[in-house]
């Protein structure tokens, strides 16, 4: 039996995209294999490492577990939509300044989880930060620097907001 590809329409990093995908494809595969955006990382593919985290309709999700058609009409944000090389997002700047990036494989997912938190809660307590990134595994940093980076980025974002 032929696997029929069907049209999936959604908004990716502010741009409307149309792409033909298989009914068994996961969102991660559409982003990487079809749209060739490689910032989102493929890790465990079982929802346990968080490296494929993207924001869908305002919520952090592991894109390896999201059947692509769940994104029909959705607004999806990946690391490519966060800052630019010349104008980094406060989270990206803060991760670099705090040494919260080592090998870097978990970083895009970590930033997306942190951003989903700060978008909803601009002034999180450390416990809330830990909960937000509990689904993102980092084998390098030990998390202390990541937590500090998120606290400082939150502060920076609040100051930007006040200006």
């Amino acid at each position, binding site marked *: *039996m032929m696997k029929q590809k069907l049209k999936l329409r959604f908004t990716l990093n502010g741009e409307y995209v149309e792409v033909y995908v298989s009914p068994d494809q996961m969102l991660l595969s559409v982003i990487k294999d079809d749209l060739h955006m490689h910032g989102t990382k493929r890790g465990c593919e*079982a*929802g346990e490492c968080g490296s494929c985290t993207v924001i869908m309709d305002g919520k952090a999700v592991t894109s390896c*577990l999201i*059947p692509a*058609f769940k994104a*029909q009409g959705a607004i999806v944000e990946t690391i490519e939509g966060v800052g630019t090389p010349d104008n980094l997002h406060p989270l990206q700047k803060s991760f670099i300044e705090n040494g919260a990036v080592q090998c870097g494989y978990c970083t895009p997912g970590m930033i997306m989880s942190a951003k989903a938190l700060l978008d909803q809660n601009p002034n999180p307590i450390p416990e809330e930060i830990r*909960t937000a990134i509990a689904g993102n595994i980092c084998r390098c940093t030990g998390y202390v620097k990541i937590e500090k980076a998120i606290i400082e980025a939150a502060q920076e974002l609040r100051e930007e907001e006040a200006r």
Partner: protein
Amino acid sequence: MIREYVLSKTIEEAVGILTKNNGNAMVVSGGTDLAVDLRSESVKTEVLVDVTRIEGLKGITFDDGDVIIGASATMSEISTDERIKTSVSSLAKAAGSVGSVQIRNVATMAGNIVKAQPVADSSVMLVALGAEITIRGTHELKDILVQDAYITVGKSVVDPRKEIITKIKFKKPQKNQGTSFVRLSQRKALATPVINVGAMVSVKDNTIEWARIAMAPVDVKPVRATEAENFLIGKIPTENVFKEAGSLAVNNAKPVTHLVWGSKEYKLAVLPSLVARSLQEAIDEIETKGGMS
């Protein structure tokens, strides 16, 4: 091989597609378990029927003493709902214990029930709450207790190739009733519990009128600590009574050794303390609500 992914708009449409495909179509809600099962090919289907866009399955309602959780309400929605946090904080805690934020943002309690892993945090709490599910297939609507939804590990009475859960319903705990959820696990997130316990206690004239205690994983399904429950009836709630109930809970437990999630001996050793703690927390909640006279 999956040949079709349908975003159903109504319950009737979803049931119709399942019926038409005669076993070759399957319901998907959050899909966090199913995605993994499909990849490993431990589950096979030709058509996936996504039910998360059906309006009638969404949201949480409080209606005339009942709490109704739509089948596609996510763990995140449930764990952060202010009304749930106020009146059934135990369920908010159980839902908030599942997986990680990313998982909770899509996973559902209905999915947990269909999947029938005995240790599923939300299901254990639902058993303690005496919750019921409504199942819709080609048959009439059917209401059954969550407790009776389990057949064995990984197998529930709900066949996702034939029927869907539409809602989960339980009585909102009254002022003289307290609930609690306690959990022992190796880390706070993405960790299968070593033991989890859900409890609900009702008091009258400062004595225990009845108690429901659900525990897992101590058998192939969440288990009621019936000996402890019977013992508690008519007792004045004290630390010693809770300890005694904890010891009795062991009589309904048949845990097995798991290399990662604890040995049989360890589980039996910690179970009494966790049961006692859950009862204490349920009573504390009644006191906080001013339900002890």
